[in-house]
């Protein structure tokens, strides 16, 4: 039975999970979820060591790594992906990437209906993603992107369907959604805004089951920044990658991408 380590530092909440996969789903062995704004780097590796030790296991027992690729805090995404790559490379085990918003959505797998996840992108913008939850399934409906909260609220109001919204974008923009969407919207409690170790494992299990988690190659798992820097846009133009106008490629990935689109 392969032991999976899952981690995400894209939000202010550090999430680490340890588990295994069965044909039915992810089995959780243990998790550490800490509210550590701007301090995930300090806590990430000690949390992994503590979690592994508390399960009476050793780090070298880890057989595969799952990482939340973002979008979210720019520095946080880089810390998580870099650390996950280092661990997977060092152990010589596969690395699989999942979307951070997909992992947050997994926390609502038991419900039925539309789910909107909004993550704070700073500068009065959010990373929004829509999911459909039904019968324990979580299906992503929209690609990675960045947009002002007012635009997203208008779009989601136009769906004309009850919607649950979660994510740390609510800390600043809850009013925007309630004002625009009225009775159609219900806002998730703050405790449900971030990924957890368990949710990361669930998202990893679902992505692998759907064949969307890649082949485990450490080199091809890339961060989702969504908002490309000018330098990356210029590089894309130089290297002849088309379809990127400086806004958001569907993959949100900078660099040589082999990406599964939702």
């Amino acid at each position, binding site marked *: 039975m392969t032991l999976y380590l899952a981690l995400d530092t894209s939000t202010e909440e550090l999430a680490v999970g340890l588990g295994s996969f069965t044909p039915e789903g992810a089995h959780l062995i243990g998790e550490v979820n800490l509210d550590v704004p701007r301090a995930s780097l300090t806590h990430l590796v000690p949390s992994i060591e503590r979690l592994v030790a508390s399960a009476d296991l050793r780090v070298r027992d880890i057989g595969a790594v799952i990482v939340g690729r973002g979008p979210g805090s*720019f520095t946080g995404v880089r810390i998580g992906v870099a650390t996950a790559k280092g661990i997977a490379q060092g152990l010589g085990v596969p690395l699989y990437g999942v979307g951070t918003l997909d992992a947050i959505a997994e926390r609502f797998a038991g419900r039925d209906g539309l789910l909107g996840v909004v993550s704070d992108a700073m500068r009065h913008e959010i990373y929004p993603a829509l999911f459909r939850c039904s019968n324990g399934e979580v299906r992503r409906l929209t690609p990675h992107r960045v947009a002002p909260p007012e635009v997203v609220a208008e779009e989601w109001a136009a769906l004309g369907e009850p919607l649950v919204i979660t994510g740390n974008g609510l800390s600043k923009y809850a009013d925007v959604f309630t004002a625009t969407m009225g009775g159609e919207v219900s806002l998730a409690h703050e405790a449900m805004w971030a990924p957890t170790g368990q949710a990361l494992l669930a998202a990893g299990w679902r992505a692998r089951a759907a064949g969307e988690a890649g082949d485990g190659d450490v080199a091809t798992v890339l961060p989702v920044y969504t908002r490309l820097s000018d*330098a990356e846009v210029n590089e894309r133009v130089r290297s002849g990658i088309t379809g990127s106008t400086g806004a958001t490629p569907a993959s949100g990935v900078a660099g040589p991408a082999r990406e599964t689109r939702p």
Partner: protein
Amino acid sequence: MTEDTILTRDAAATHRAGAALGRVVEAGDVIALSGGLGAGKTALVQGLAAGLGVSGHVPSPTFNILLVHPGALPLYHFDLYRLERPDELVDIDFWETLESGGVSAIEWADRFPGELPVDRLDVVIDVVDETTRALHPTGTGSRSRLLARRWLAEWRTDTGRVAG
């Protein structure tokens, strides 16, 4: 010279003006400083740090670009002098730092005027003579306009104390 100008006779007075600002700033405030080399931007931020209760040396961040000082509120001290393009602000996590609940002081903020937050306290430092400086605070939004008023009031109280 308008009544919204703070006139400082020497570097010590510029430091005192910064300390007055440090006593009235709140979490999330952004102070954008401009003025040529030697105008006293760093002296003002050193005063700001003292007003925030930062202990220890507050050097110019020209080399480091960003230095973080723990105080009553964290002080994020930027110097954008060495940055060449706005996208380099992404690499230093500029916007996230500004919105992370501390006080941000940005030297050479006028290098990237389009990248600054909508509501910020602009402080232009004019060199009047060898030692005298004129500080011109301008709030660009309701929050920073209030901060500018509170700073000027705190400074007048402080100079009243010093003179008396």
